[in-house]
């Protein structure tokens, strides 16, 4: 039986996923980043030359770019103190029995077998930079839906990758998309053919294990005309004292009349920097929905965006951010209207507790030719304690006179009357507050698949223990 590192109690109330397996890796690079590391990653994966070229060019861009001078505090990130690649098993396993024990145990703790037994379509699970286990159900395969790790996708469908990889988020977009493009590993590749509706949510789990691991997964989702897919990701990470970096890139292409919903529940432990670039191109009459839940991490900077490129396209973001002490959630969106009759809707709910800080940062841009467009943004912030902090930084730019834009934001603390009412019904203050917070986030939680909704509510309850006083 493998040795397990015992569950660590963190300062708040105990992080129930805070365990780690002793590190067992086939391949683990030393810390540090240089051109050699980039070449080794590409060679290990057996990639075509053109992908290596993309990686090397991106690495140069990364070196040249400055760190952003806005958002959270990035000053303590040391790029040389991170392992940029590791690989836990020789190859991807198709059946659960073949997966090594300690990795299986990790997934048991995360509840994956139950999920597999239930009605989920296919699960690709990632254990530190690699897709370890996946089983794509026959149903999906029959419909022609492609759902696999990005590495596998690149090997099997290079022509798709040549066309779409980096088309939504180029390396030069920002320092972290450049880093990701240079050292990306793992992630999901999804292609849904014309007219195909995937009713069951496609899921993937992530995990950061070893000290100072950078997670650089790269996801590419293409929904062909008239299709529908709901992709769900949720991730956990164990507690470590040195800081981890998670710098993913998600590119989504929603073609004419298609619809994509991308749901995330992020619950990294409080030492992780979560700096992610997520963007979708929405074409004619298509719909793109981001449902984004940010509970964990030390600092999250994430702005899932939609570029509305075709007439009648629609973008939606439902964002939930929870910042406890020593956490900073800096999240928001960019809705860029570049075609007529497009619409966008943003609901952002944030909760700050202890000394936590939660910031909304968003852009709504309506270009001159995006005539007759509409946009609505609503930000609500709840401040639980007197040292909690919330910010709102919206930027609204409109360049025509036929569009309509509305934006509103409000901040408050837990409503005294509601608190009094619940306490008069026998709940103690902590329970009452947790219930009120639950109600506050309900519009977003009800859109999540059930096991996520349950996990999320439980996580919030756990976070709120000890919030009184």
């Amino acid at each position, binding site marked *: 039986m493998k040795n397990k590192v015992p569950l660590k109690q963190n300062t708040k109330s105990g992080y129930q996923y805070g365990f780690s397996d002793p590190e067992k890796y086939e391949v683990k690079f030393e810390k540090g980043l240089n051109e050699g590391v980039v070449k080794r990653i590409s060679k290990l994966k057996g990639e075509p030359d053109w992908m290596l070229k993309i990686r090397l060019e991106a690495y140069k861009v990364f070196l040249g770019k400055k760190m952003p001078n806005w958002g959270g505090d990035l000053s303590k990130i040391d790029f040389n103190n991170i392992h940029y690649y590791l690989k836990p098993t020789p190859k991807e396993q198709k059946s659960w029995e073949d997966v090594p024990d300690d990795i299986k145990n990790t997934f048991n703790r995360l509840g994956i077998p139950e999920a597999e037994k239930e009605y989920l379509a296919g699960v690709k699970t990632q254990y530190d930079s690699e897709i370890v286990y996946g089983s794509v159900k026959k149903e999906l395969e029959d419909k022609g839906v492609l759902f696999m790790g990005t590495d596998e996708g690149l090997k099997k469908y290079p022509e798709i990758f040549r066309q779409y990889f980096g088309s939504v988020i180029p390396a030069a977009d920002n320092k972290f998309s450049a880093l990701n493009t240079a050292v990306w590993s793992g992630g999901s590749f999804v292609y849904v053919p014309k007219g195909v509706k995937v009713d069951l949510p496609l899921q993937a789990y992530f995990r950061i294990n070893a000290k100072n691991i950078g997670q650089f997964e790269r996801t590419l989702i293409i929904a062909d005309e008239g299709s529908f897919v709901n992709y769900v990701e949720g991730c956990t990470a164990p507690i470590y004292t040195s800081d981890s970096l998670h710098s993913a890139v998600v590119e989504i292409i929603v073609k004419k009349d298609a619809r994509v919903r991308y749901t995330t529940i992020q619950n990294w432990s409080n030492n992780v920097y979560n700096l992610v670039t997520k963007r979708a191109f929405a074409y004619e009459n298509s719909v793109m929905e981001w449902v984004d839940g940010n509970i964990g991490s030390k600092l999250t900077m994430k702005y899932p965006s939609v570029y509305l490129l075709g007439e009648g396209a629609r973008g939606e973001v439902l964002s939930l951010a929870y910042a406890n002490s020593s956490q900073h959630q800096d999240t928001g969106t960019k809705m860029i209207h570049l075609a007529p009759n497009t619409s966008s809707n943003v609901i952002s709910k944030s909760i700050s507790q202890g000394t936590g800080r939660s910031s909304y940062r968003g852009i709504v841009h309506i270009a*001159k030719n995006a005539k007759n467009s509409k946009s609505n943004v609503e930000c609500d912030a709840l401040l639980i304690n*007197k040292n909690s902090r919330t910010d709102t930084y*919206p*930027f609204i730019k*409109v360049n025509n*006179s036929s569009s*309509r*834009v509305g934006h*509103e934001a409000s*901040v408050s603390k837990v409503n005294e009357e509601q608190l009094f009412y619940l306490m008069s019904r026998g709940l103690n203050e902590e329970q009452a507050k947790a219930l009120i917070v639950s109600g506050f986030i309900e519009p977003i939680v009800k859109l999540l698949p059930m096991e996520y909704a349950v996990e999320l509510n439980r996580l919030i309850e756990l976070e709120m223990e000890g919030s009184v006083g």
Partner: protein
Amino acid sequence: MKTEIIKTTLNKIPSKIFLKKDVKKVYFFEHTGGLKTKTIEIIAKERGGEVELKGSVSLKNTDDFNLKTLTTHFVGNNKVRIHIKAVLDDQAKLNYEGLINIEKGADFSDSFLQQDNLLLNDGVVCNSSPQLQIKANEVKASHGVTMGSFDQNQLFYLKSRALSEKMAKKLLVQGFLLF
């Protein structure tokens, strides 16, 4: 509470307005172009005061105007209301930035910012960024921004009352700018 109403040009509004205990200051302006930038700071270092800043900005031709309001509540028990309406025509450009900053300990601050924009021509550029930085939790703070053109129902109604389109729009602009 003593109320002081100051109706003046935007140019003459002081660049720093201080809240004063038991005094409600209401500033009112109607700006029709001719300024490149204007920054107004509203500062609450004393408890118990109120400030209202209300005004309209009408820009046309190639007017290009940067307006900034910065409200800071260093202490609480006070109230600030900012309401700015803008009408943009031709190739006019407006850049508005409005920050409400509530510092730690400034409990019972009550701060609200509303910025409405009426856009009359596809050549206009309207940028608005209302911001909040809130470090105290016993507060009321909110903001809203709207941008758009005429309400088609209102326009139709006036035309059905025999007003020309030009006259109807003129009336709607006047109505929009009323406080």
